[in-house]
């Protein structure tokens, strides 16, 4: 479903991605882990067609980037730590607006379905700026799945959410994954991704340094796997590793 070969991304002289290879099969839920500055967000922005690679090949659902970007965007849903929603529009108006941009038919029915999926149907006439951060993030997932994409990219969706909001978000993520969609999610929260993902890839210094499937790993082994992968790279931040260890405990 996603094929990436020798991907390089440079900002000026600084190379953020350095010949990255990455494959995802249809229906997989891949957690992309890595320290700050490893290139996770840059990589996801390239997959999302929001940024261009300097070198390398990327194809999603058989369509090459950047040549067939519009076809890729039609099959892609993206959730970032920002909701990409308009505060002065209601939840329903936001979804209807994005639905029109995607040229969706039966928009009323689809908007109602998605609002029910993310648990915001009762609040559909409320302005988004009155929503809590967790509610906005749930609506952001609704926006991302409105056009029923084959691939969904999540860039640290739990950022800034309290425990209750994270738990509700996880339920929505499970629901989305249960529909057989291909998911790639970056996160620093090892505990959460250990319960959600079917595969764990570690990105460090612009390349994938390790990859393991969920069935090959006990949940309590994920931190050790992550530490081992990242410690191969001497530039990784030990403070960050300690923080993630605390989260897992």
């Amino acid at each position, binding site marked *: 479903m996603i094929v990436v070969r020798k991907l390089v991304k440079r900002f000026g002289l600084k190379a953020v991605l350095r010949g990255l290879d990455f494959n995802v099969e249809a229906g997989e839920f891949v957690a992309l882990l890595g320290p700050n500055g490893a290139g996770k967000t840059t990589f996801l*922005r390239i997959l*999302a*067609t*929001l*940024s*261009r690679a300097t070198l390398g090949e990327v194809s999603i659902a058989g369509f090459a980037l950047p040549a067939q970007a*519009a*076809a890729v*965007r*039609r099959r*892609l849903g*993206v959730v*970032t730590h*920002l*909701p*990409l*929603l*308009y*505060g*002065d*529009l209601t939840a329903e*108006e936001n979804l209807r*607006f*994005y639905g*029109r*941009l*995607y*040229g969706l038919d039966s928009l009323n029915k689809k908007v109602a379905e998605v609002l029910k999926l993310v648990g915001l149907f009762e609040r559909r006439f409320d*302005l988004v700026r009155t929503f809590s951060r967790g509610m*906005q993030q749930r609506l952001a997932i609704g*926006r991302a799945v409105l056009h029923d994409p084959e691939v969904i990219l999540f860039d640290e969706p739990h950022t800034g959410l309290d425990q209750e909001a994270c738990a509700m978000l996880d339920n929505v993520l499970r629901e989305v994954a249960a529909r057989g969609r291909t998911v790639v999610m970056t996160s620093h929260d090892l505990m959460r991704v250990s319960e959600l993902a079917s595969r764990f890839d570690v990105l460090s210094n612009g390349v994938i340094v390790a990859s393991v499937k969920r069935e090959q790993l006990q949940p309590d082994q994920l931190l050790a796997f992550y530490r081992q992968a990242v410690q191969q790279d001497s530039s990784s931040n030990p403070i960050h590793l300690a923080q993630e260890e605390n989260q897992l405990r």
Partner: protein
Amino acid sequence: MTFLRATLAVITKDLAGELRSRELLSAMLVFAVTVILIFNFALELDVKTRGTVTAGVLWVTFAFAGSLGLNRSMAIEKDRGCMDGLLLAPVDRSAIYFGKMIGNLLFMLLVEAIVLPLYSILYNINLFQGGFLGVVFLGSLGYVSVGTLLATMTIQTRTRDVLLPILLFPLAIPVIIAAVKASMGYLQGLEAESIRPWLNLLLVYDTVFIAIAFMVFDFVVEE
């Protein structure tokens, strides 16, 4: 059809959002009315002089009020990462430009529709002439077409509030000069022959900058 639908969706969204918040229109309107009042008291013009300065006063007011509106219009897209949401849609990205540009034009025309009668009353001058109103439209179109493109670029920077006027005003000089000259021609009742070169310049400027924006918007919005 997809292009048109996406353009309409962006326009409708901007109008619906502004109808609710009124942040953009109120800022533009308060600024424009204040400037007109300041000029009214500062200049204390006689009837003859009014005819020569009216066009300049009006276009300076429209240009500054317009830059306020352009900044706010793009700030809405930057807020909560909405520009990324637009760019993720499977539509020709120039449809997003046209949607934003037409929305900005509507806001600017609305402010002008309120400011012109007010100016007419304060300065006791008849501004409701077909030719003059046509110049107001063409001048606003040119200003907004280049302004929307530049606002999309500057919105990515930290100094966007300062940077937009610095980039916009030099590029908008031809459209402002042409609009002032053509407006003055109509208000002073000059013959069509002497106004036509300025109208032609306005038309060429509008066409060229809309075409440039259509071609480069995709590159402008990418990192």
